[in-house]
């Protein structure tokens, strides 16, 4: 019977062409949207986790309560102990100290006078020990010119910032800020390499220095403004570190001590919980929407087909085929149509998805400076295993529902009137 139905579909193009076209179009859009949403949201999460939230992040209770980032006065101290505690609680994660702070960058001219001043965002990260963040932050991949810092006092500067202040690699700059006790912090640094993260907020005015240089600058021995934690397998799922967060805070966070450490996981920071929920639900919304639209279109197509095949159904019923059998055959046909449309649609959707994955869309102009999430300046799609299967549900279910409704007309046919209708 299946072979018979397949032949029918192939030979009677009017029966299959339009439904397949509709499904192909719908499925291709679903596939493209799946790859786009996966890529865009995934990119946002990667950037936000990498630069802003970590998979988990530890700060002092005071820094969290006041919702401040990079305030040396509210930094964590005694971090070697905290790092040991963290590593024993979560051996599946790696932990890294980081210091974020703002400072005045003063670039001198040849006579040592101020040539250029700008506020700069400084990130002090481990560049030398076994905990180094060269790979975590992608510093090696982001290096545009020069080299990574090797000695104390060396720094990396973002390419945009370097161009804006007209600095040459190897020229010394002076940073002026406030240390942990609010005192004056001053130091000379020499940028030896330029980097570009592809994240507008960071590329504007960031300088990266070694962790020990940052601690020395801010009079913050064994301290850092934040400790970032990342899963070694780099796989983050919704609320994955929730148990770790509860356990760490229960054991080490003291509500009476505003400088005691407190852990938060990704969704607990920057209002990411709501974004994550939207992301989780977005594909369900997209699939449901396309199933509904295509089902309505295909229902209509089925009704039109029913009119065209009115005589055929009449003959089949007159020859003794049961109404149920005729209805089932219509449903099986719709599944064939769905499978064919899904295959074509998936192939069609993957083409632009692949282009968006490799080339992406430049959104630099749309980014504003103060966003809670870090957006890469080029949105890219991401084709995953789920992308290949994302069209199956709407591609098969929609024509099936369409046939399910439109085929009901068969049961309204009156067998006693068939011969009259067929003018036999």
């Amino acid at each position, binding site marked *: 019977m299946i072979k018979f139905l397949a032949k029918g579909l192939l030979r009677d193009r009017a029966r299959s062409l339009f439904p397949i076209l509709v499904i192909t179009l719908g499925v291709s859009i679903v596939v493209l949207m799946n790859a786009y949403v996966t890529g865009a949201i995934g990119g946002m999460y990667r950037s936000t986790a990498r630069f802003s939230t970590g998979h988990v992040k530890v700060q002092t209770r*005071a820094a969290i309560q006041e919702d401040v980032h990079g305030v040396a006065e509210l930094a964590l101290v005694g971090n070697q102990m905290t790092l040991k505690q963290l590593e024993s609680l979560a051996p599946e994660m790696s932990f890294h100290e980081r210091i974020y702070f703002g400072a*005045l960058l*003063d670039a001198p001219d040849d006579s040592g006078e*101020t040539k250029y*001043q700008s506020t700069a965002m400084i990130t002090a990260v481990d560049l030398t020990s076994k905990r180094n963040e060269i790979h975590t932050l992608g510093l090696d991949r982001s290096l545009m010119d020069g080299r990574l810092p090797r000695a104390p006092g060396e720094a990396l500067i973002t390419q945009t910032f370097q161009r804006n202040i007209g600095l040459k690699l190897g020229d010394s700059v*002076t940073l002026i800020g406030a240390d942990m006790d*609010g005192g*004056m912090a001053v130091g000379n640094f020499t940028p030896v390499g330029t980097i570009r993260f592809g994240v507008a907020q960071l590329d504007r005015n960031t300088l990266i220095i070694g962790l020990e240089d940052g601690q020395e600058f801010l009079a913050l021995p064994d301290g850092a403004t934040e400790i970032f934690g990342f899963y070694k397998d780099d796989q983050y799922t919704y609320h994955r570190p929730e148990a770790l967060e509860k356990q760490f805070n229960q054991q080490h966070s003291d509500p009476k001590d505003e400088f005691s450490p407190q852990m938060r996981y990704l969704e607990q920071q920057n209002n990411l919980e709501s974004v994550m929920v939207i992301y989780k639900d977005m594909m369900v919304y997209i699939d449901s929407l396309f199933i509904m639209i295509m089902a309505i279109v295909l229902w209509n197509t089925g009704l039109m087909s029913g009119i065209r095949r009115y005589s055929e159904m009449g003959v089949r019923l007159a020859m003794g085929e049961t109404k149920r059998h005729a209805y089932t055959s219509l449903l099986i046909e719709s599944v064939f149509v769905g499978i064919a449309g899904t295959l074509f649609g998936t192939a069609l959707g993957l083409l632009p998805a692949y282009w968006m994955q490799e080339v992406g869309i430049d959104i630099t102009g749309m980014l504003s400076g103060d966003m809670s999430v870090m957006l890469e300046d080029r949105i890219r799609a991401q084709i995953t295993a789920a992308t290949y299967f994302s069209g199956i549900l709407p591609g098969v279910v929609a024509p099936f529902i369409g046939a399910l409704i439109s085929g009901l007309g068969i049961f309204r046919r009156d067998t006693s009137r068939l011969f009259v209708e067929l003018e036999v």
Partner: protein
Amino acid sequence: MKVPILTLALFWPAADLFAGPNAMEIIKQMDRSQNGDNQIITSSMTIKGRRATRIIESKSWIQGKDNSFTEYLSPARERGTKMLKLGNRLWIYYPKADRVVNISGHMLRRSVMGSDMSYEDMMERRSTEETYDAVIEAEEEVAGRMTYRILMTAKLEDVAYQKVKIWIDKTRFVALKQELYAASGKLLKQLDTLEVMQTDRGWYPSRMKFKDTLKEGEGTEFQVTEILFDQKIPARRFQKGQLRR
């Protein structure tokens, strides 16, 4: 002709008394007792942070309203830092970086040594008369002393504080309290005099608390340990070359 002049001379003080004291005159009187042509001040600044309290000692050489030179004496982290103000220009020498840095533009709004005072607070060169209109609002008691409460409203737009309320001791002519407001009416800074001392020029606020109301913390306390008026300060003190010495 003599009679009218004599009459006028006799009645002049009484006429002045009936008109009440002039707010600007009170401010000028206060200025006279607190500012000489030159002065050398040794002082300390106590900054209470959330984790630590820092005491910064400094010595300043001041020439009129235009020029000043300050050298920080302690603690070790700040020792040797020098600040030179010439007119409306300001340079700071940081010994640790061996750099002279020009502080200008929005940088002037930054805090001096982490205190509640900004560089901008030190930069006003124009006289009060040039920049503000003043009116006595009331007479009030502050810290057990009767004061004139004077409201000063800025005449110019480029003044750091558009409105200032100042409580001046009625007999000692020393400010016991000041409130500095933005154009919106928001209180930005508050200054309370905690102690006064008598100098050969009059009364001087020797211990003050300066509070930036937009900043966390308990404020910054200034203690004047020594003040010398009308001292001879060599001109080279106000040369940029002095910063690196």
